[in-house]
C-alpha cells in the first residue's frame, strides 16, 4: 500500500508543479478587448508554429530555428483611448501565475511605464519567456512557451528590432 501512496503523492506533486509552471493568458485580460481601441491577439500552438517555420524564407533561417522548437506563442496588446481601462488587479492576475517556476529577470519602471520580463527554468535551458509591458493607455503581454535559446534570440537583433543587450547570453 505504501508504494502506491508514495507513487500517487509523487504524481500529484509533479503534476501540480507542472500546472503551476504553465502559463495562460487570464480570462480577465481577454475581456479587456471590447474596451480597447486597437488590439493584437495572436495565439500560435505547436503545429501552427511548425507550419509557419516551413514558410520561412531563406533570410529567415535563424527565426525558423527558434520557432520550430517552440510549443506556443501568445501575444496580447491593447491600446486604449483613455487611462484606467485596466487595473493593477488585471496585471496581478498575470503575475500570480509566474510565482512558481519562473524568475523575474527584468523589472523596469519609468514615468507610468512598467516592463517586466520573466523566464521559466527547465532542467537545462530556459523553458519560456513572458514579457508584461504596461503604460497608462497600453497593456502588452508576450508569452513564448518552449525551449528558448537566448543566444539565438539575441542574434535576431537587427532582424526584428530585438536588442541584444537586454537578453542575457
Amino acid at each position, binding site marked *: 500500500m505504501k508504494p502506491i501512496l508514495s507513487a500517487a503523492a509523487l504524481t500529484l506533486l509533479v503534476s501540480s508543479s507542472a500546472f503551476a509552471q504553465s502559463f495562460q493568458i487570464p480570462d480577465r485580460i481577454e475581456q479587456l478587448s471590447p474596451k480597447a481601441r486597437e488590439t493584437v491577439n495572436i495565439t*500560435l500552438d505547436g503545429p*501552427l508554429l511548425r507550419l509557419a517555420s516551413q514558410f520561412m524564407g531563406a533570410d529567415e533561417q535563424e527565426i525558423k530555428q527558434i520557432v520550430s522548437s517552440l510549443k506556443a506563442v501568445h*501575444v496580447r496588446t491593447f491600446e486604449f483611448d483613455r487611462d484606467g481601462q485596466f487595473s493593477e488587479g488585471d496585471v496581478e492576475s498575470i503575475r500570480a501565475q509566474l510565482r512558481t517556476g519562473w524568475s523575474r529577470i*527584468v523589472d523596469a519602471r*519609468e514615468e507610468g511605464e512598467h516592463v517586466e520580463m520573466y523566464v521559466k527554468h527547465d532542467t537545462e535551458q530556459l523553458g519560456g519567456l513572458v*514579457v508584461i509591458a504596461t503604460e497608462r493607455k497600453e497593456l502588452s503581454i*508576450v508569452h513564448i512557451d518552449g525551449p528558448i535559446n537566448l543566444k539565438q534570440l539575441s542574434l535576431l537583433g537587427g532582424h526584428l528590432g530585438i536588442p541584444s543587450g537586454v537578453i542575457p547570453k
Partner: protein
Amino acid sequence: MTPQRHNELHDALRRAFRQVDPPPGFAERVLQRTSQGAVPKSIGRGAWLRWATAAALAITASGGLWYRAEERRRTQGEEARRQVLLSLQITGSRLREVQMKINRQQESRP
C-alpha cells in the same frame, strides 16, 4: 506397344475424329441468332470504358481535393508566419523599451 494395342488406339482415334453432320436446322439457327444481334460484341469494352471514366473522375476529384487542401495549408502557413514575425516584432519592441529604460537609469546614476 504391341501391334494389337496400336490398332485399337488407331481405331479409337478414328471414331473420335469421325465426320459428323450438324443436327437439322443448325445453320438456320446460327444465321437467325446473328441477325438478332445476340452474338456478343467485343467482350468487356464497355466495362473498360466505364472503369476508365470512373478512374479518371476519381483522380480528378482527389487531385482537386489535394489542391484545395494544399492551398488551405499554404494560406494557413503564410498567415502563421506573418503572426510569428509580428509576435517577434512586438517582443523586440518591448525588449527595446526595457533596454532604453535600463540605459537611462544607468546614465542617471552618479
